[in-house]
């Protein structure tokens, strides 16, 4: 049996073996680009990627967003320039892409689907910063202030600027940055988890911390969580995972301005 070129990456606590039969250069590039995330051992997720130039690129007129469909064959996303199928057992991903950067799309879609369905966690639009005693999550949609939080956190380690993964392991919530995304090279990302100390909902103004209710936190978080499946059962699983999360992790509103003063509020809190 021919051994295809592959690399095992530790992504948000998942050991993903990425294999590419028809493009060994892509595997070499991947191993180079995310070298700190390359690990050994047995994979927990097998990702087989094929480069297929017959897929349409650029998107067809009228194409707006990808949709993920659940069937007996698993979970399938069929976009204009990529095709991804996650097995029903959530342990194998088969994908076809046109371009190298879409390898990141495949891995991101796989994790943001698999983690909530397993009830292990979720991927969210969020900045994440490591403080002295743990990590803080700052979820929010575009324009919420995630980049401002990162830019005004001197001397602190940025775990994520745009996408973060929250995962529960042995009863503890951990936060990971997601590599292969956005400003990868500007961040000194690490594959190891950071214990999550709390979550802050972002608001702009004079720095202060305000209490929030669990329902407000859940509504806010659900607007930031990335989850492509649209069927009722899968979405209910995400609701369950996130509602549990906002009850188990300290959550507050952080009012911030474009300076690092908000960190005094966080450290005092």
């Amino acid at each position, binding site marked *: 049996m021919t051994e295809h070129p592959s690399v095992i990456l530790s992504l948000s606590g998942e050991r993903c073996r990425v294999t590419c039969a028809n493009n060994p250069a892509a595997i070499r590039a991947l191993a180079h680009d995310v070298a700190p995330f390359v690990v050994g051992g047995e994979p927990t997720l097998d990702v087989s990627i094929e480069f297929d130039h017959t897929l349409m690129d650029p998107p067809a007129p009228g194409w707006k967003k990808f949709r993920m469909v659940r069937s007996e064959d698993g979970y399938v996303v069929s976009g204009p320039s990529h095709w991804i199928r996650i097995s029903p057992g959530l342990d194998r991903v088969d994908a076809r892409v046109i371009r190298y950067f879409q390898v990141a799309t495949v891995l991101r879609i796989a994790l943001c689907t698999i983690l909530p369905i397993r009830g292990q966690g979720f991927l969210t639009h969020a900045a994440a910063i490591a403080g002295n005693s743990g990590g803080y999550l700052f979820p929010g949609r575009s324009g919420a202030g995630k980049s401002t939080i990162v830019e005004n956190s001197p001397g602190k380690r940025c775990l994520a600027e745009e996408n973060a993964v929250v995962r529960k392991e042995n009863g503890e919530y951990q936060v990971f940055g997601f590599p292969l995304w956005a400003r990868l090279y500007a961040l000194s990302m690490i594959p190891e988890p950071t214990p999550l100390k709390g979550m802050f909902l972002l608001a702009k103004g004079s720095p202060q911390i305000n209490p929030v209710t*669990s*329902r407000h936190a*859940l*509504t806010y978080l659900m607007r930031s969580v990335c989850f492509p499946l649209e069927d*009722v059962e*899968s*979405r*209910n699983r995400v*609701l369950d995972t996130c*509602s549990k999360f906002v009850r188990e992790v300290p959550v507050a509103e952080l009012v911030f301005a474009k300076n690092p003063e908000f960190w005094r509020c966080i450290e005092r809190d």
Partner: protein
Amino acid sequence: MTEVLQQIIVLNPDAASRVIDGEAFIITPHDNQIHNLTSVATRVWELGGEGLTVGDIVGKIVEEYDVERETAEKDILALVQDLVERRIVSLDDPAK
């Protein structure tokens, strides 16, 4: 108005939902939005799931809460209209 009172509420079967601490969180599929209902609105939505007419639901709410029928009817009609606009529920003719 009378017409609406005689109609039944049908919950959107494609909307994901959970009731947490007595309040419903509903994700509508057409716009991917999450809606958080108050406890009374959640009760109306739950009663809608039992196949009751809007008029029956008004009667139940009057029984369960300290509220005048006229006030309950006015508030529930406004709520139902809002839920229909947000595609959380639809109205149907019970005779169908």
